[in-house]
């Protein structure tokens, strides 16, 4: 397989998610930038990642961390220039790293010139680029997403004396995708970046593109028509590029976004993520197997995208009330950790900095069907700062060294875009890349190793999954298969050692080869295959008939 030419490259990708602002500051102004990012691409290569997902870097008032775009055809001056971005793109490609960028289709910033024109008068030619109303009573059946800040999906515009529609913050007016001019313009935006060489887009908030009275204004057929049109153009003009859907929906509602291989290539599996945390805390595989049982088959060329943590809160939208209460009580007893319907914390603090649990969760991330995404800093166990508002607590500067500003910037600390993590457990003197590079058993090196093992076979990115249901419910075991290759994964979700008997009779005659140490385990026979696992231990076995 050649990842640079394979059209299904996203299936084998290990994606590293990063915000330019947070990664490395090359010019000493306290804000990460493209040239700083370029300097750190070796690090991503060293870690083993082969795709980079950049969060929004466009000109923006930054009232929603860049998801409020004011100009789609440029980069925010704080991060550098378009040429700087091109350098990142080229350097990444030279290292075999694909670059995925963010594309916010649903809405713009209210500072975008399009909206400024639209609100300037009811007769402006761009007026119909947004969704306006004389009343705030239309689309009553639509839920409010940002419950903590927004009371309505309509906001009053005093300039044009009417209401405009917004599914997110009130400073993010929704574009009117019923307007063909908007569709054309947004494709032109995508084309601009594709021609520059980006490998894919994460399309933000796709379920909300279209509004219709009498519906909940989510996942409407008209939205799928729009996506199909974008995909058709993409395949026609830019084959091998990829669309990743951000649609926080139940699996059955997500399935249509893959269409018949004619919509998205990939989509985040949102409901799985909280259930992995839930299964870990319950010490019970049921939440995980249940949601994966409910996950429909997707076309062969499509792929789920899996993650443990990202730049947002650990979303609890796709769980029941009982599950949400449980998650809050288990992972966010301190109410300041809660935001909207979620928990704004990083991976390591969520897991009490327990290395065994971090490894187990990462092991599942890397071995369940889908393409894994690593949120920057999680590979070294970075912490968060819940005293920062909104989701900024999980967006603090990357901790490169134990020295000045954690090696992130040479600026005065007061000028950093966000304060560094200083606490004794997660602070940069204790948690940083340099020190972990020097420690053979660091989380960084462990992550590097598991990525290497995952990349040693295509079975994880492309294979099928078959759950085993051993009577010990603390054990999550499954087979991944691709062609003649079979891999057995056994995860102990419990804090105590466990014994488990696996029914491997269909694989009688195979020996198991532990994939990290390459040691042989006994041959599979007629009897149940007995394994013992330490607390939170995970085994990856390759099956081989000898």
């Amino acid at each position, binding site marked *: 397989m050649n990842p640079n030419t394979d059209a299904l490259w996203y299936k084998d990708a290990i994606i590293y998610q990063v915000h330019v602002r947070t990664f490395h500051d090359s010019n000493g102004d306290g804000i990460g930038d493209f040239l700083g990012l370029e300097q750190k691409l070796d690090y991503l290569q060293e870690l083993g990642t082969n795709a980079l997902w950049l969060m929004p870097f466009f000109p923006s008032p930054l009232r929603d961390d860049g998801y409020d775009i004011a100009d789609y055809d440029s980069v925010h001056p704080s991060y550098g220039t378009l040429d700087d971005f091109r350098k990142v793109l080229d350097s990444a490609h030279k290292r075999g790293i694909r670059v995925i960028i963010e594309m916010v289709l649903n809405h713009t910033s209210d500072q975008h010139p399009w909206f400024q024109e639209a609100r300037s008068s009811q007769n402006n030619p761009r007026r119909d680029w947004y969704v306006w109303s004389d009343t705030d009573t239309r689309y009553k059946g639509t839920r409010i997403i940002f419950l903590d800040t927004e009371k309505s999906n309509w906001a009053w515009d005093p300039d044009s004396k009417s209401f405009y529609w917004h599914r997110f913050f009130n400073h993010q007016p929704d574009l009117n995708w019923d307007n063909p001019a908007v569709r054309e313009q947004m494709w032109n935006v995508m084309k601009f970046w594709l021609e520059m060489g980006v490998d894919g887009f994460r399309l933000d908030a796709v379920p909300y593109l279209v509004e219709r009275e009498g519906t909940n204004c989510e996942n409407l057929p008209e939205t799928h028509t729009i996506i199909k049109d974008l995909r058709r153009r993409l395949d026609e003009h830019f084959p091998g590029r990829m669309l990743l859907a951000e649609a926080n929906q139940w699996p059955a509602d997500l399935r249509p976004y893959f269409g018949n291989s004619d919509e998205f290539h990939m989509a985040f599996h949102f409901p799985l993520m909280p259930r992995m945390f839930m299964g870990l805390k319950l010490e019970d595989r049921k939440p995980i197997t249940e949601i994966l049982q409910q996950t429909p088959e997707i076309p062969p060329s499509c792929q789920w995208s899996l993650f443990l943590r990202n730049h947002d809160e650990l979303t609890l939208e796709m769980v029941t009330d*009982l599950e949400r209460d449980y998650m809050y009580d288990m992972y966010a007893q301190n109410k300041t950790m809660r935001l909207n319907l979620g928990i704004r914390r990083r991976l390591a603090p969520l897991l009490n900095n327990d290395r065994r649990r971090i490894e187990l969760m990462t092991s599942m991330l890397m071995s369940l069907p889908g393409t894994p995404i690593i949120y920057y800093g999680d590979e070294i166990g970075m912490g968060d700062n819940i005293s920062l508002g909104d989701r900024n607590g999980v967006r603090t500067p990357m901790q490169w060294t134990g020295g000045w500003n954690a090696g992130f910037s040479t600026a005065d600390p007061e000028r950093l875009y966000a304060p560094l993590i200083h606490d004794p457990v997660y602070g940069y003197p204790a948690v940083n890349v340099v020190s972990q590079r020097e420690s053979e058993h660091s989380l960084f090196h462990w992550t590097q190793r598991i990525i290497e093992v995952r990349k040693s076979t295509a079975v994880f990115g492309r294979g099928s999954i078959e759950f085993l249901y051993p009577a010990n419910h603390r054990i999550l075991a499954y087979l991944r298969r691709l062609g003649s290759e079979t891999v057995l994964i056994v995860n102990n979700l419990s804090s105590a050692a466990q014994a488990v008997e696996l029914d491997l009779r269909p694989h009688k005659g195979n020996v198991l080869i532990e994939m990290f140490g390459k040691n042989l385990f006994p041959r599979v026979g007629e009897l149940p295959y007995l394994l013992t696992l330490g607390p939170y231990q995970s085994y990856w076995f390759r099956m081989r008939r000898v």
Partner: protein
Amino acid sequence: MEDGTFLTDDFLRQLINVGEVDILVGLPTHNNARTIGSIVQTIRSGILRSFPRERAVIINADGGSRDGTPDLVRAVAIDDARPASNLYALRTLHVIGTKYANAPHNGVALRTILAAAELLRAKACIVVSPEFESIQPDSISNLLHPVYNEGFDLVSPTYRRHKFDGLLMTNLLYPMIRALYGIRIRESYMTEFGFSGRVGSQFLGQNNWSDSVGENGVELRFTLAAISGGFRICQSFLGEKEHVERRAADLVPTLRQTVGVLFSALESGFDIWSPVSGSQPVPTIGSDPDVLLDPLRVNRKRLREMFTTGVNELESVFQSILSPSTLTELHAIDALGEEEFRYPAQLWVKTVYEFAAAYRKSVINRDHIIQALAPLFRGRVFTFLVENRNGSANDVANNIEALCLEFERLKPYLLEIWKSKQ
């Protein structure tokens, strides 16, 4: 079965797979297919409603059912291997079971449940009778909650019963245990109860399981062990308990499992009960015990006849057990016509206490002593039925309370005859 190895390998394997639990529900069964389905559904509802986060297991100790009872129990398990189940639950609900014999035996069943509770380190456990058809989901919570959340070690049940149900309890066990141990537990011979892992383990370790006596009347033995061990005890209201028709022939075995167990326990527990005077109520969760007053057909004439037959035929036995004055009084009331016949509280208490002392001294074979109590108990029941025939719930409660006070008042008499050589 040898001590320490009485669990089968298969059951042990099931326990290993379950692992540590918070909640354990023990379900002894034997050919209960008619009732068990709805009962286990109720148990599951109770767990899901009140303890959705806790690790729970239902353990079926089956005495060799041939009607598919274990399958019906297992059907309520919640796990991930049955994707068709649309039941919502946060976690797995395990249902495991073992067939311990080909005949029912409460002692073996409870021992199995206690051993499982200990191995699984269960924090709160309950045992539910497979015949408790009127059980409600709240009953499960009422039994578990005091243990799991409030630190009680034993939760004894109370019910809404017919005023003529549980007459052995109201006329002997409740008042006598209350008088002797100073604790007012209404239902000491429990078919449904809750307990902590702590008291379960202690009982499992201390009870003489290799002795068949140790396995008979195990429910009452468990209560007495909890009382004697100074564990925290409360009562919990479980709603209505159905009236169950009993055959006359059932009385002697029942007396063996209750009165026999109580008399036996008095011997070893003398230092505990002898200094106690008066009695204290135990905390009660939910409603107070309640009585149903609807008409119930009872053959009083037959009871009276059995009393008379017993008094006459067992004269020589009674001479060994009872004091002359008590025996004289018994003859006196036996001579009364049916309308006038009464077995007064004072005479009944003295009778019971003298039987207890005789049992301790083994004046005759102990089992014969227990058997000899049966006709006298029937005479007492006759009196209770007559006295409460038209009684309101309050009247019945007052009569039971009066009997209890009589047991307490005459406790010095028991101590006196307990120590005497005669």
